[in-house]
């Protein structure tokens, strides 16, 4: 465990350093020195005003999605669950799309609030289901239904959207990005993320108990109902705040826990913090790669993370299928 944390922190620091040193503008060593010395210089503006918040946005969103994924997987006892699979991301995206089409984008924070509201709506529905039906299968099927419905409603929004510019704006949001995120944007996301992380930490021992299945957990003496609700609500808050900050970004919730599962001893509670750290590193790295690849159009982070994450999803599915056959 200690080695895992050391490795994850070193990885994150390396990616952080690279994120500050690499970008569209190539700075000389002298200019980096200037950035350190004079906070009002242009290099300082590039490093501290553009690159640093961009790195933190990617890392925060990655951490939130990694943690939300680990929580969903523990809750459903399935290494392929994540907020995307369960429809939370789809509803957050729907909220944002609806707000943009209705012209709410001119209201400061309007789109973000709509994304958070969408995630909380999906999370609320999942929470009601989680309280009524403790079986993991019910929640998975319900989540898949929710995800499809969110997707269908978003398509409807596209369909009825008044002009191609709005459509492009919605599409751009749904592709996910941390480009041009300011410290103010970050500050708005951090509150719901912290509350979500707190709920997830509280739910941890319940997730571990679920290793034994629903019935044993239910009779274990832990307040499973409350812990289950905390897990769903926490994951919804983390996802909603992530979509609000960076749009829809998939697969981090599956990839991050997958990377650290073995090192964390497959423990559904102890995997939470490493998953958050791995998610932060992964998404910051994906953003760095997206910036390094020279393309005419800037590569979108959501596209990049899906390109990296989807093969990992297939790998995870393959491994899980093999272990189920044993």
């Amino acid at each position, binding site marked *: 465990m200690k080695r895992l944390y050391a490795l994850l922190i070193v990885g994150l620091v390396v990616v952080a350093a690279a994120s500050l040193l690499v970008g569209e503008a190539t700075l000389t060593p002298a200019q980096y020195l200037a950035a350190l010395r004079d906070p009002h210089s242009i290099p300082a503006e590039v490093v501290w005003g553009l690159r640093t918040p961009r790195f933190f946005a990617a890392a925060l969103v990655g951490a939130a999605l990694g943690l939300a994924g680990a929580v969903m997987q523990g809750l459903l006892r399935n290494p392929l669950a994540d907020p995307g699979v369960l429809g939370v991301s789809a509803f957050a995206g729907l909220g944002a799309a609806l707000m943009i089409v209705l012209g709410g984008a001119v209201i400061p924070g309007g789109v973000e609030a709509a994304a958070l509201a969408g995630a909380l709506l999906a999370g609320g529905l999942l929470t009601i289901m989680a309280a009524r039906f403790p079986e993991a299968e019910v929640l998975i099927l319900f989540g898949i239904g929710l995800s499809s419905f969110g997707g269908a409603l978003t398509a409807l929004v596209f369909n009825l959207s008044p002009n191609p510019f709005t459509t492009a704006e919605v599409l751009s949001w749904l592709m996910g990005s941390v480009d041009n995120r300011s410290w103010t944007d970050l500050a708005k996301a951090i509150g719901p993320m912290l509350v979500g992380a707190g709920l997830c930490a509280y739910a941890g021992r319940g997730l571990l*108990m679920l290793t*034994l*299945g629903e019935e*044993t957990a239910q009779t274990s*003496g832990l307040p499973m109902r409350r812990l289950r609700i905390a897990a769903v609500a926490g994951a919804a808050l983390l996802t909603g705040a992530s979509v609000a900050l960076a749009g829809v970004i998939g697969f981090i919730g599956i990839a991050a826990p997958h990377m650290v599962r073995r090192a964390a001893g497959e423990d559904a509670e102890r995997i939470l913090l490493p998953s958050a750290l791995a998610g932060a590193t992964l998404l910051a790295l994906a953003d760095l790669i997206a910036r390094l690849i020279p393309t005419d159009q800037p590569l979108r982070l959501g596209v990049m993370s899906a390109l990296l994450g989807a093969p990992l999803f297939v790998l995870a599915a393959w491994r899980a299928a093999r*272990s189920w056959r044993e």
Partner: protein
Amino acid sequence: MTPLLELIDASVQLGGRAVAQSASLRVHSGEVVGVIGPNGAGKTSLIRAALGLLPLAQGAALLGGDPVAGLSPQARAARSGYLPQGGRIAWGIEAWRLASLGAPDLPAAQARQVALVALEEVGAAHLAGRSVFGLSGGEQSRVLLARLLATRAPLLVCDEPVANLDPAAQLETLACLRGRAAAGAGVLVTLHDLNLAFAACDRLVVMQGARIVADAPPHQALTPQRIRDAFGLAATVVEGPYGPLLALEGPRRAHADL
């Protein structure tokens, strides 16, 4: 003395069908009570209702004298431990950690100690550091039994704990439960092996068609007549070297005499 578990005239509906009807049952400290019956007779539903996992359509389910529906999760766990049938383990954590989940009320170090003692008790001390995914089905069953023992509950409820075990492991599992009963626990266990039930239980509850048709010491509960009625088997009690045994014969096929 207040029974550890009591069902009074309990009926359970599942999907519009009665899976238990007017069932009454008591388990006291120090006894091993076996529940037997053909598949679908309602054994698991009866147990789940007694633990408050299924709502009663009628009657009452008490744990330690109080209605189970009114107990907090902690209070229920303090009064009963449950080992469900065919428990599937979701993640490959170490065996001792799995066993220690029986004691979520204790601080980590103490829970570990309780888990190690329980693993010793089920003869699985050597597996403590292994991932449960690397264990055979029988070894996993032992670790799950250790988790049940780690609850330290006065009432242990086991649903088919020997279903996947070889004969020696079956006897060891029942010996473990008998040991706990000798130490004062009450044990309620469902079994399919009539001879095992005959030998290991103080009392047998026979279920047939969602009803309890007998509740008596083994030799009174499992008469040849009742075995024929409930299981469709011909049975003879034979004096074996270690006690009475049931010699069973399958149902005669209609065409056998042709």
